[in-house]
């Protein structure tokens, strides 16, 4: 399986993602934001970080990068595109997934482990994951997902919510919502479910010595689903 990780100026989880993808069998290429063409890929990842310093709205400058036109075309033709953290913010800015990401409710950066409940398994990202609940890791300042009521209805009707923040048993309640996201949303799909944006970093959960191993579960499953 071939993957590509895009490096924007200010990306800082690109190396971590590269290592994770390689560890689980992807042949990964790093792609520079100023390139025009995407290498042949089964999966494209927009990594975390602070693209262009996030000095404008997070992700907005990166969404206009040269490479992004190819990424958008790739996504629109059904290609698998995953945006993590800043990558999710970039996806939102391109309009590939609906909604926006606001500053966290308490206006503070949060770095910690969280539990997420998988909402939908009829997609290539979560199909065949045995667990209902995964322990992931978040590290962000703007992960407070928001959309209009109409959008929310559409998202729910299309079953576009990928994961919710919850407790270890899968209970979705306000107290387990780390950043104020509407409906505890931690990640969403586009309508076709080939594009996934999520705040948690599975690439930081791939080793028992690190924060945990549920990221390994995610990647192992992902590569199998793509085969």
């Amino acid at each position, binding site marked *: 399986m071939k993957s590509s990780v895009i490096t924007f100026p200010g990306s800082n989880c690109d190396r971590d993602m590269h290592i994770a993808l390689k560890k689980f069998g992807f042949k990964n290429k790093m792609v520079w934001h100023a390139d025009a063409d995407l290498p042949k890929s089964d999966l494209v990842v927009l990594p*975390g970080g*602070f693209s262009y310093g*996030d000095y404008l709205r997070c992700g907005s400058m990166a969404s206009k990068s040269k490479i992004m036109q190819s990424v958008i075309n790739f996504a629109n033709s059904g290609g698998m595109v995953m945006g993590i953290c800043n990558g999710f913010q970039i996806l939102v800015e391109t309009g590939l997934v609906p909604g926006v990401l606001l500053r966290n409710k308490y206006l*503070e950066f*949060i*770095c910690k482990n969280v539990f997420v409940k998988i909402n939908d398994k009829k997609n290539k990202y979560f199909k065949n994951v045995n667990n209902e609940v995964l322990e992931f890791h978040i*590290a962000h300042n703007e992960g407070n997902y928001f959309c209009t009521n109409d959008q929310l209805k559409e998202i729910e009707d299309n079953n576009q919510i990928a994961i919710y923040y919850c407790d270890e048993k899968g209970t979705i309640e306000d107290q387990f919502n780390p950043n104020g996201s509407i409906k505890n949303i931690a990640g969403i799909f586009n309508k076709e479910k080939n594009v996934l944006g999520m705040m948690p970093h599975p*690439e*930081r959960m791939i080793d028992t*010595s690190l924060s945990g191993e549920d990221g390994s579960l995610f990647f192992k499953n992902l590569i199998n689903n793509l085969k």
Partner: protein
Amino acid sequence: MIVNEQVAVNHGLKKDEYAKICELLKRTPNITELGIFSAMWNEHCSYKSSRLHLKKLPTKGKKVIQGPGENAGVIDIEDNDAIVFKIESHNHPSFIEPYQGAATGVGGIMRDVFTMGARPIANLNSIHFGSPQHKKTKNLLRGVVHGIGGYGNCMGVPTIAGQTSFDSSYNGNILVNAMTLGLVKKDKIFYSKAAGLNKPVIYVGSKTGRDGIHGASMASASFDEKIEEKKPTVQVGDPFTEKLLLEACLELMAGDSIIAIQDMGAAGLTSSSIEMASKGNLGIEINLNKVPCRESKMTPYEIMLSESQERMLIVLENGKEEQAKKIFDKWNLDFAVIGKTTKSKKIELYFDEEKVADIPVNTLVENSPMYDRKWKKAKLPKKNKIKKEDIKHLKIIDVLKKILANPNVCSKEWIWQQYDHTVMGDTIQKPGGDAGVVRVHGTDKAVAASVDSSAVYCWAHPLTGGKQVVCESFRNLISVGAKPIAITNCLNFGSPENEENMGEFVECVQGISEASDYLKYPVVSGNVSFYNQTKDQGIKPTPAIGGVGLIKDYKNMITMDFKEVDNLVLVIGKTEGHIDQSLFARSILDEKNGPPPEVNLFNEKNNGETLLKLIDNNLIKSAHDVSLGGIITAVAKMCIKGKKGIKILKPKYLINEIEYLFAEDQGRYILEISKKDFKKVADILNKNAVHFDELGTISENKLYINDKTKVTIDELSTSNKSWLTNYMIK
């Protein structure tokens, strides 16, 4: 502008210093030259009050590749890997503008590290605030934490450990010390010594603006009521540009075109160009019209003294300019050839085709003032005798809960959750333990680091305090299973012109020297910050020690959380019942006098090294050093982290129970071992003449002092975790 004595004094120079400048130049300096002298001769850059004493610090060792004098220290961690590290203060700017002050402190120290060719792999910090009740404390704390996070998080470097304290002596002068560790190949270290004639001098990074002009002079002055007026001298950080600068520099460093490189930190272009010339025994000629400027009509004076961030000065090999420029173009950074090295041994500056400065380098560096300031030796205070009636009404559990909720002991999760501590995917021990630990990427090795200070002990007796803080650093690294290698120090003191403050400095340095010499734990880098005072009131002396150690196989790392019910808990090191200056004495008895606990260097070394032996033999399940709040506080934290309880035995000690549990005697650790290993452990401890007590056994979820005195771990955890969050949010 005409330069005279008054203008020099306004620049922070003393009258005799100005006279010396005129004598060295054999003429009156012009305003640009005066600015350069004032920047180079201030306390922050010249170390004029501290140099004499810093010479005492042991700086050499088998593992030391580079000691003080470079951008940062470098130590050998084997297999051609080296760690570059340093700690630096950004106290004055952080008090004036906490967000930018703290952020640029973090940015500055990271630049010091990657200037040497190392990729930063971990950040730490030591931050000290006034009393929680003081009206400024909350906002300063919030601003500093946001600033540290804002910069470090954006750079993508994990913040893995730190220290936060509160004390009213910081009410008018907070401390923000930032430390960075970087990883480099031993044969790819870059230095700041220029070499060769007619080599191009290159400016890279951000453009120069008017921010931070005279920042270093401000950091060398005391605060008064007008301090808010100094806001324009605080630099503004841009972590995004620094991230680009980091990647661009590392890309250039992969080749062989750099002769010397130096970041523009305090005193900007002035100190960076002069340091490179001075180390290389050369001259440097700069055309200031070539310096990329952010604002129009900047004068030579402003260009030379600006402290705009995210800039570097490089001496390149001839003919490599185009190749280097391509890299900086790719990263959208300024790149300008601004001058060349010369044989004149002078700094020669041109602007609009006119020579605007002409100063021999040695007058700025070797001939800079050095003072043997008067200092007062501190007496060892008399011991207090605790009166039985003062303590007999105390309930141990209540006292323990109070201590766990004390601002200086409580959980700092509210702070470190705002720092990205997991980016780079190698953090194997997060903040909240004895030391932060990151793996050396792609190897089995790991590096442990911690930062410590004990201002109360240093204030009570500087010599003992200086020793103690080095020992505490040593213990923190050993507690995670790391072999301590070297330290960096950030010496935060009041005015060197005050005999008592100067005495605190001299004796703390003496204490640090003795301990670091004895423990073979040399000082490889550091920074001095004087004038931490408002009006006449100096802060408590606060040397912060950043320690770095190596774990050969990261799988053998130790954490402090209790692991398994029925395991045995031991205390190693002797408990004599030293209560003076303990948190118990200060916060429960309200007794602020008396000597700090004695430091026995032999015991420190022996206990620490023996514990490392036990760890090497896989006999230790968890470990934690005993510090603030004594044995019971240390044990309670291990319970909270491990979500386990403990049954404490009625120990066979001769001192009062309260003294035993809350005393802050040094050189002690709490260990968890498996029952079956007891004989092996006891043999090793006895063979090495290490005193130990059996403290108890791990139980389900309560801490028992005896059958009647007990408390649930949940309750202790709530005491420990709620203070800071409640303070900040409510």
